[in-house]
């Protein structure tokens, strides 16, 4: 099994979720994160003092998939999350050694 971690633009979350659903992946976990990268932050101004906000709101989607669906899932996320503008984010794939469904104790692919 593999874990896909995709850092995306927040307003793309729904499309990513739908794209994954379309290829039969119905479970995922998302976290509100802040990202720093090539995308420029913005400058705010408060009472005459400027300050730079360089961590931008992003959403991290984590989804664990069986090996054979990995490519489809990465593809789906990539297509759904892309706007073509800087800051679209990254997808990382990590190995997963075990999975357990807490409710039933099912393991590995059965647990997904």
């Amino acid at each position, binding site marked *: 099994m593999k874990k896909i971690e995709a850092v995306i633009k927040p307003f793309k979350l729904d499309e990513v979720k739908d794209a994954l659903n379309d290829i039969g992946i119905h479970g995922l976990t998302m976290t509100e994160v802040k990202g720093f990268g090539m995308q420029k932050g913005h400058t*705010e101004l*408060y009472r005459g003092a400027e300050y730079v906000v360089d961590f931008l709101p992003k959403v991290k989607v984590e989804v664990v998939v069986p090996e054979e669906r990995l490519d489809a899932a990465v593809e789906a996320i990539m297509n759904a999350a892309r706007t073509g503008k800087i800051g679209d984010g990254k997808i990382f794939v990590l190995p997963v050694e075990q999975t357990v469904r807490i409710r039933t104790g099912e393991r590995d692919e059965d647990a997904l």
Partner: protein
Amino acid sequence: MNAGMDVFFLTMGAAMVLAMHAGFAFLEAGTVRRKNQVNAMVRVLTDFGFSTIAYFFIGYGIAYGTYFFAPVPELMQLGGKSNAYELVHFFFLLTFAAAVPAIISGGITERIRFWPNVLATVVLVSLVYPFYEGLIWNGNHGFQTWLNSMFGAKFHDFAGSVVVHAMGGFLALGAVIMLGARRGRYSKDGRVNAILPSNIPYLALGSWILCVGWFGFNVMSAGVAGAVSGLVAINSLLAMVGGMLTALVVGKNDPGFVHNGALAGLVAICAGSDIVHPIGALAIGGAAGVIFVFGFEIIQNRLRIDDVLGVIPLHGVCGAWGGIAAGIFGSTAMGGAGGVTFMTQLVGTLTGVGLAVISGFAVYGAIRAILGLRLSEEDEYQGADLAVHQVAAYPEEDMA
């Protein structure tokens, strides 16, 4: 001594209606998304400021023919009243005039540009509103005399269901349509997408402030303490309660409907609060609560007009209902004080509504043509707080 008391009386009224503007600010800030809270609050505050300038130098003169350019010793006796009563009278009526942009603000929020909006405020408060105000409350241009001769009574709008609220609410119609819906509100495939409020407690705070301040709005509309009437107070109370409770039931416990339902009742009772029976007031308010809930849903979902806070149903439709209802429940047949006729109330109300609708399209249409009304797509997306004010509502949070 009398004059001192009257100045005291109207100062309290003016302070209470001034506070209502804080209510407008919080009602709006709570209903919009987080990224537009600052802009909502700054616009409501500064609209009040620009309204003051517009009404002081132009509007009040148009409505009442009075200006304030004489030196202080004369101002103290203006209109033959001592203690500078006339000056606080201006203050009191200004807080009404300034309610017009505050009402409209709730419809056009989350996408209006800042300075074009200021321009609209100035035009409305210096010209449009005072024209109708003078027609009704100062007998200008013989309109009231004509109504009286045609329909047997003058148009009765004690505290402004029509003069203030229907005017503001129906001006918002043109404004909202000229402006267009917020991006993402209506999909091309016909779906209506919920754009959710950020903060119900702020909304509730706004509503509470408005409710309390409204007793200044209505009761102090008597102008002088000697003319004050406990009937106005109890009628405002019962209409508020009527609107709140029907909105609770019809609106299925929705906190937005309940808190605005109370306001719907108050909007509707302004016109007849000095003449209807308390039980009539309960009925007027109760009907207003129902009108508001259904009106909101029709306008948003059926007519697809993106009136964010629902100011068209709330102030516009319920205000018009209040103007007409005064002609029904104010009659002696309904236990009221009489002195009104249904036809006058109908014609007076429709005149106000018509004027508001036309002016709304005209003013906002002209500004759109000349300056543009809307934030750019990008500014709307990132929010008016950052786009217009270069700062968000919770700046500390943004620093990672």
